[in-house]
């Protein structure tokens, strides 16, 4: 710093940092509340005043993954013989149900979680592959009406989901794609491919053309040069784009709400649907939410240096 920092400036700096810390705590409080509620016993989730300190339990996760019935008052249960995780639920006055063969029955959650994984991963792979080659096409060759085409590609991403969902619902119904993984995968791929094209075009633009040209002179074909020179150079960009596409598909709600109801339902429409009539068990909802948010939180840390670029469609780079 060329300018001598005065005492006033230093105090200002300290105050600013203190403010940042306070705001960070406030911004993270809702996330902390989700995590902490997912480890609370049910009776501590809704108390007045709210419970902040408590002995953590895993019973919400047991309840999240199992089907349960309310215990009848006179019902005799061999509480002593039950495995430890079932005893956790007994304490809540509920019993894990079993199929005729004595297997513990799973709740709806694991199915939805797996559906989310299938749909998000498949659509990400498709969108990123299509996006990367199309971005290469736009980046390296003259395309007639390139600006208009790129605008068209971007504008498909800007449409409100419900606007697209009405005709897609009718078309899917006619084609038998409603409530199918394939239907959702196609929708999410279409949604993400535009994003992937824009982001990847930025990444590929940054790879010097000379690399491929040197390879072409050395006798590579254009396709070989693309696979052996461009793709490895673009690896970071591809990974960042893939993570963004995954998060978008993972979080998507409106299409999933309209296009699925049971078989292919993903977690985002399922989790809110657990709140039916009566008092919801917030510990179970928190446990489901926590597990659902965890991958995204991890990815956010891995992505931290690419967030700016991804969130601005590749327009702003550091």
């Amino acid at each position, binding site marked *: 710093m060329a300018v001598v920092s005065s005492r006033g400036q230093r105090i200002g700096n300290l105050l600013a940092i203190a403010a940042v810390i306070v705001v960070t705590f406030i911004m993270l409080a*809702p996330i902390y*509340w989700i995590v902490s509620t997912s480890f609370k016993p049910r009776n501590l989730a809704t108390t007045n005043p709210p419970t902040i300190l408590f002995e953590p339990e895993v019973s919400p996760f047991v309840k999240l993954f199992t089907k349960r019935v309310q215990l009848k008052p006179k019902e005799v249960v061999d509480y002593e013989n039950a495995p430890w995780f079932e005893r956790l639920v007994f304490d809540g006055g509920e019993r894990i149900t079993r199929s005729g063969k004595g297997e513990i029955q799973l709740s709806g959650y694991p199915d939805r979680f797996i559906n989310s994984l299938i749909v998000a991963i498949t659509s990400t792979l498709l969108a990123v592959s299509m996006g990367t080659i199309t971005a*290469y096409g736009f980046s390296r060759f003259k395309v007639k009406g390139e600006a208009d085409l790129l605008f068209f590609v971007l504008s498909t991403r800007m449409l409100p989901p419900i606007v697209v969902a009405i005709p897609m619902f009718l078309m899917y119904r006619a084609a038998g794609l409603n409530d199918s993984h394939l239907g959702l995968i196609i929708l999410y791929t279409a949604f993400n491919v535009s994003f992937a094209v824009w982001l990847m075009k930025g990444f590929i633009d940054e790879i010097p053309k000379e690399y491929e040209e040197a390879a072409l002179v050395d006798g590579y074909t254009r396709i070989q040069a693309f696979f052996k020179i461009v793709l490895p150079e673009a690896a970071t960009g591809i990974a960042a784009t893939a993570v963004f596409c995954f998060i978008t598909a993972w979080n998507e709600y409106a299409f999933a709400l309209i296009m699925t109801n049971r078989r292919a339902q993903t977690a985002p429409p399922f989790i809110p649907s657990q*709140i039916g009539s009566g008092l919801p068990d917030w510990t179970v909802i928190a446990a489901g939410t926590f597990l659902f948010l965890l991958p995204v939180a991890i990815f956010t840390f891995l992505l931290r240096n690419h967030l700016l670029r991804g969130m601005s469609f590749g327009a702003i780079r550091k």
Partner: protein
Amino acid sequence: MITTLDPHSRAAYRGWSDITIRNLFVIPTILFLIVFNIFPLLYSLGYSFTDFRASTKDPVNFVGLRNYMELLSDPNIWSNFTITAQYVIVSVSGQVIVGFGLALLLNRSFPLKGLITTLLLLPMMLSMAVVGLFWKLLYDPNFGIINYSLGLGKLEWLGDPNIALYAVALTDIWMWSPFVMLLSLAGLSAVPKHLYEAASIDRASRLYTFFRITLPLVAPILLIAIIFRTMEAFKTFDLAYVMSGQPTTEVVSIRLYKMAFQEWQTGKSCALAYIVLIMVLCITNVYVKYLNKAKER
């Protein structure tokens, strides 16, 4: 330059020609987008002139512009648009104030800055529907941590029709201020240091420095953030739908959803979708213009 479209270049004789490769790389994606984005829209454009109801097998009648006339003269639809506008103004201005303010605070070096910035960015990456749902517990008048920590007694955040929209907007502000912060930080870090040094040598006041140096230089990138958030807030569905059933939070997307999938007025909802679509295209146009401007910088 050896590039690219010269069919007589050496490269062109080996393997596929560049033109083939270009077409192979670009055309399938464009076709895919046309089939799954443009074709459905043409389909619904057709239906927007009919009285089609997807829930029945009644014959479909052509009704001309009647759906559009009815929608544009329906005061309830206008109130949906008013609610949406209110929501956009409250949540976007909140995000700009919080996000830009945070960026100003963060625009200095201190230990753990990277970690804190990433933590602050976390909310915008999460699912709006799932996190929005959990805010219902935070807002709960009896057990909610918000009323408790602010000492607000039993304030019905989502139950009171007069404040439910603001409660939803507040959640949106929590989620998306980080976005404005992220873009503002990029803008702030691009302001040349020597301008501040010159200002300080000239003994310019802090306010003067802020309004004459900082703000004008950050304005273009801030504008992009504002346009982007405006567009997203205009389209908002997840948060309001999950958090509140109040008629005062019925934004256009929710009206559209109900009209199409609960009342099954398919033809009419297609017409409303088109009205919304035209509005979004207008905002997108402005957005892309500024994106390109920002790129030129």
